């Protein structure tokens, strides 16, 4: 599975420019599902039909990663930008970025009196061009870039940019391949534009109109030095979300996930995230309401180039998804 994760996290795909990662995922799942389509916003929707005795389940993992969008190219060939999704200027300093066409750039900053004055509008990207004309041969205003970083395998843990949320895409792909006979009609949705407002999930949920929604996303941990207060840790198993800013997990869904984990001996932990949301936030408010929840992969250093996950937790998440879908569901 590490090879799958590596191919996913290292692929370019900031919110709004998910074409490359979508093609990769589509190639990976073809042959394993009954139907595949891409909708108006770019969501990849794959369906595995059940035997007719179950319900309609929508699973969502977002394909998009955070990035930057070029808003201005100055006379000397430096690029000014805004963020696509939540990008912290301090994390960006000293990073390299990569555009969809492969052009690489370095992030620089204006002279500052104090580092706490650092803001995105005081920074720029240097692609090594000497003039506006030279820069424009390679990059244009409106182009987006992602962090340029490869995955590193630390053994039981793996670190890369875009674990948020490519690790969940990998979990869904693994689950999708493993499921063999389910009573439910399962919609595996690889959503777009989650990082800019859960947008893909909103339109996909409307068109699918599911009975149950489960998002798979990363969540923070409280297991690093002087960390935020949060009782989620790497190695603690699949995190069953109770609440975040976008959703309070439906109590029945929380129970379904916890009971399924207990019954299957799957390690799990409960998760409360103070700031942050997932696709389930959009799904649960669709139409007349959809009981929803989120299975989270604990992840350190979210929205940095060094997002770190635990392979045991990943396995637990895959196991949990498969286990939930294998049995009848009473929601």
């Amino acid at each position, binding site marked *: 599975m590490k090879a799958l994760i590596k191919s996913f996290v290292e692929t370019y795909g900031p919110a709004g420019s998910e074409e490359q990662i979508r093609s990769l995922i589509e190639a990976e799942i073809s042959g394993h599902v009954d139907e595949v389509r891409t909708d108006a916003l770019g969501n990849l929707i794959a369906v595995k039909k059940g035997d007719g005795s179950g319900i309609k389940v929508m699973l969502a993992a977002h394909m998009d990663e955070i990035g930057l969008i070029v808003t201005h190219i100055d006379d000397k060939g430096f690029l000014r930008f805004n963020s696509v999704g939540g990008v912290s200027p301090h994390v960006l300093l000293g990073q390299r970025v990569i555009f969809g066409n492969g052009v690489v750039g370095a992030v620089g900053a204006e002279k500052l009196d104090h580092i706490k004055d650092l803001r995105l509008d005081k920074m720029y990207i240097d692609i090594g061009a000497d003039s506006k004309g030279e820069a424009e041969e390679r990059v244009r205003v409106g182009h987006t870039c992602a962090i340029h970083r490869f995955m590193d395998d630390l053994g039981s843990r793996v670190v890369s940019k875009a674990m948020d949320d490519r690790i969940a895409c990998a979990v869904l792909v693994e689950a999708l391949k493993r499921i063999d006979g389910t009573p439910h009609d399962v919609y595996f949705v690889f959503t777009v534009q989650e990082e800019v407002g859960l947008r893909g999930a909103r339109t996909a949920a409307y068109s699918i109109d599911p009975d149950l929604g489960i998002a798979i996303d990363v969540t923070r941990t409280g297991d690093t030095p002087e960390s935020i*207060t*949060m*009782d989620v840790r790497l190695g603690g198993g699949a995190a069953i979300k109770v*609440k975040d800013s976008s959703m309070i997990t*439906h*109590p029945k869904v929380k129970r379904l996930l916890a009971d399924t984990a207990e019954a299957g001996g799957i390690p799990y932990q409960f998760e409360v995230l103070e700031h942050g949301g997932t696709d389930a936030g959009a799904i649960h408010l669709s139409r007349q309401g959809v009981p929803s929840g989120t299975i989270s992969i604990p992840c350190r250093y979210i929205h940095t180039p060094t997002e770190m996950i635990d392979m045991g937790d990943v396995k637990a998440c895959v196991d949990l998804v498969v286990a939930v879908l294998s049995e009848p569901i009473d929601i």
Partner: protein
Amino acid sequence: MDNREFLRSLVQEAGISGYEDRVADIVADELGRLAGDVRRDKLGNVIALKRGSGPEPRVKVMVAAHMDEIGLMVTKIEDRGFIRFTTVGGVDQRTLPGQEVVVHGEQPLVGIIGVKPPHLLSPEERQKAMKMEELFIDVGLNEEEARKVIRVGDLISLRRDLVELDGSFVAGKALDDRAGVTVLRQCLEDLNRLDHRADLYAVATVQEEVGLRGAIVSTYGISPDIGIAIDVCHGDMPGVSPEDTSEMGKGPALALGGNVHPKVRERLVAAAGELNINIQTEVAPGATGTDAWAMQVVRAGVPTAVVSIPQRYMHTSVETLSLADVKAAGRLLAYFVALVDEGIREELKWL
């Protein structure tokens, strides 16, 4: 059961956003009894339907009050059994130190939000408001014992019974918006004595405090012709400009602004005039901060209005209001509904 008893029974229960079940049961019983028909939707909204006498397709009036309250949620159990928590909805952390709570674990446990004694505080410390991260709950158990009963994600509610103040005034937690739910009760009771052609959907919504979520989905399911939110608004008190408040005990406040359809408001004003109910005006240039903000833009749109009960000390455990205002609002709404007939669809048009 009268309004006071109903309200007391509601505020005694814990019904924090997302976990309104126990309050919903009480509400469904009483509203269902008065309306004749009651159901719960997928997110737990209680929808009571009192059918009108008009011919199908009848005009649908939806009146909504939220039954959820703000509260807290366990984020961590620390060594020595102290509980760390986060907020559910807009809780002012300055109201928490020294507050008694109930931690809803396997069993309900009484807890105290502890504070350092003044003897051990420096003068500087005492000048600064406490931060949420510094607060903790003491349930009187050690870590091992606590972990047997409590888990991350468990809800924590404030301990406060209804306080009977002078005359019609009462105080307590969650009057925002269980008082509004009581208005629904009064409305249904009055409507049982009036003829009405329109269908009334009296909805006790969930999760208003975390984003008007119950209103979004319940309105989608009902698809009403008119939607009115019953909530609380700020009552006058020292230190707050009069233009931001309404007077206590002087009747419900009707919002005025983009979130309110002028014709719906006009009819509410007319109904108040006929009943001799004093009403006040709440100028709302944008969002009203009520379920009506969500209701107005569901599907192809809903003509909405807001009726509010003046209340002091919102989002504290000593919210204070007058049951006379609650009763007046209920009567007003019943009369409004009774005056709605098929012609209103034309009347609501802008062109």
